Every structure is written in C-alpha cells, then in structure tokens.
C-alpha cells in the first residue's frame, strides 16, 4: 500500500529527507497546473513551483496537520504565484482580491438557448482548457482548485485566504464565463462546419 502524505512527512521529519521526493512526485503535476493557470507562463510557473516546494520543505516542521498536506501546500503555491504576479511590471486593473463588478447574480436565470454540442471528447477538453488558460488568474485559479484539486468552498477559502462569500461568488462567475466561452467556440465551430457542408 502506498504511503500517505502523512507517512512521508513523518519519515522526512525523522531524518529521511529523500522521502520528500515522493511528496514532490505526488503533487507536482497538479500544483503545476495551478501555477501555470495563474502565471500563464511555463518557465515562471516552474520557477514558482520550485520555490514553493523549497519553502514547503523548510516549513514542514511547523506543519500542524490540521488540514491535509495538499491544502497546506497549495496555499504556499498560491501565495508564491500571487507574489510573482504582484511583482510583474504589467499593471493590472483588477487585483486578485478585487471583484470585477460583473452584474451576474447567483439566482439569476440565464439564457437557456443551448446549442447541441457535438465536439469530440479530446477537442472539447482542449477547448475547455484553453478557455480556462485565457481567463484572468483570479477565475482560473479558483476553477483549478475546484475542478483539478477537487476542493470544496472551505478548502478554497483556506488556500486563497478569501472570504467564503467571495469564493462562492467568484466560482459561480468563473463557471458561467467558462460555459459561455465554450459554447461560443463550439457553437461557432459547428456553425462553420455546417457552412462547409452547405457549400459542398
């Protein structure tokens, strides 16, 4: 049976530092997904992730195991990426903590005009990922924590340090925006396909 994160941490703290490689291998891909979606740049994300792993290693003796290692570690990744973002020269109109004033409301009925989507699974997945990558980091990060890390509201709150209401609101907006973008792309693609068919 594979060691749990806690087993590995116990080994590390008892002197087997090489065991940390197991933790890295276990979490690096998901953490990289988060870093990449926040920083939008592969080398920056890699650097941030390396920094996060080094920080986590040195902070491990202070890890009280009140939450899972994943939650604790993703908070470090999130903070490192947020710091990297804030250091960028590019001035952002909206910071990560600021709401963007989108008038969407959670209970508001939306357009039910949903086209039939008949994308191949791989294509559809590629479109979804591209659209997440194209979103602002505040939405991309929360979507990644929710879908990729499979975190609930409370865990996302713990990772981002945002209030629960903000997390709920932001996740709602992100999902609606993502759905609109995907439908738009798939719809356009289908429309283009239909035009090609009619030209024949």
């Amino acid at each position: 049976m594979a060691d749990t994160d806690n087993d590995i941490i116990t080994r590390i703290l008892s002197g087997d530092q090489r065991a940390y490689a197991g933790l890295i291998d276990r979490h690096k891909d998901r953490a990289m997904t988060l870093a990449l979606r926040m920083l939008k740049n592969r080398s920056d994300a890699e650097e941030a992730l390396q920094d996060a792993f080094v920080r986590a290693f040195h902070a491990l003796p202070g890890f009280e195991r009140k939450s899972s290692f994943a939650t604790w570690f993703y908070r470090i990744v999130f903070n490192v990426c947020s710091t990297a973002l804030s250091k960028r020269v590019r001035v952002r109109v909206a910071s990560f903590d600021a709401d963007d004033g989108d008038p969407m409301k959670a209970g508001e009925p939306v357009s039910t005009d949903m086209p039939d989507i008949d994308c191949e699974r791989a294509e559809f997945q590629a479109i979804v990922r591209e659209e997440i990558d194209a979103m602002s980091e505040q939405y991309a990060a929360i979507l990644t924590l929710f879908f990729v890390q499979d975190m609930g509201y409370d865990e996302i709150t713990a990772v981002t340090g945002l209030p629960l209401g903000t997390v709920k609101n932001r996740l709602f907006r992100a999902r609606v925006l993502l759905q609109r973008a995907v439908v738009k792309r798939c719809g356009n693609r289908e429309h283009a396909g239909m035009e090609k068919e009619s030209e024949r």
Partner: protein
Amino acid sequence: MKHLSEQDVFDYIDDPSGTAVRDAALHAAECDACRKRIEMHRRIGVSAAGVDTHVLPKNFTARVMLTLGAPKAAPRLSWLSENGANIFAMVFVVGIAGCAVYVALHASPDAAESVYARQYSLWRDAYASVMQVFAARNREVFLPVVSETKGIFSSVFLIGAAALVLLGSLDKLRSLSRVFRIR
C-alpha cells in the same frame, strides 16, 4: 415554464443527492433545455478536471532536491564503486568458508594431494595473506588457527564473517531499493 437558475444547475451537478436539488431534478426530467445545460456544465467540469501532465521537465524533482541540499539518489555506478570492495570481500570469504567446510568434512588425511586439498591450500594461503594485511597485530593468534585446525574452527570464524558481510550488504540493498522507489 420557469427554467433553472445557474446556481440551481451547479447545485444539482455538485451534489445530485442533496435534498435541495430534488426540485431541480424533477424540472430537468421534463425540461429539455435545462437538461442540456446540466449536461454541458457536467462535461465542462470533467474536462476542466484534467491535469496537465508532462509539463514539468523529468528532472524537476531532482532539481528541487538538489536545491534543498538533501542527499541525492545515488546512481547505480556510484553504488557499485562504493560497494565493490564489500561484494568482493563477501565472495572471497564465502569461497574460503565453503572450501574449508568441504575439506573439513570430506578430505581424508591421505588425500593431501587431492584436488580439494590443493584448493584448500590455495585458499588457506590466500586467507593467510589477507590476515597478514588486515590482522597483522594478531598474526600469532590467527595463523596458527588456520594452519592447525584443518579448517574447522576457521570455517566457523569465516562463516560468521561472511554472515556479517552479508548483513551489511543487505542493509545496502535496502538503501538501494529506497533510492529506486523514490525515482
């Protein structure tokens, strides 16, 4: 007919067994438009859950470990170079012990010129040479034992030594298995 709100749809997808979504489920059963929306969000969720593997370079873990200054996983050649002497010693000692035991059990006093006896002499001389190097201070103790006990006591001694070397090697092998498991 009033359609489901987006929040209703999300609640239904995230926790379909929840009691709060019972009305949404009933509505979705009758409303084609809302059923499509639910299906679309579900597909998006599944697609968004994919992890971007193979994005990181293969040596990423090793790089982080290097940054930490943690002991690196030793490459195989390095392990061989470190433990080659141990392995040689183990083979050497086991060979002497085996030969000594065989001669002690099977070689008759008249078989001094037999092949086995000659091999025994060969191994005994080699063993004596090693003892001269590694146990020069105790030469007076070890050499008479080798030459006078016809291999019986030295066999016991050598088997014990072989067991110690073997245990040491097993420990090394355990370390090696940890190294490979980490990789």
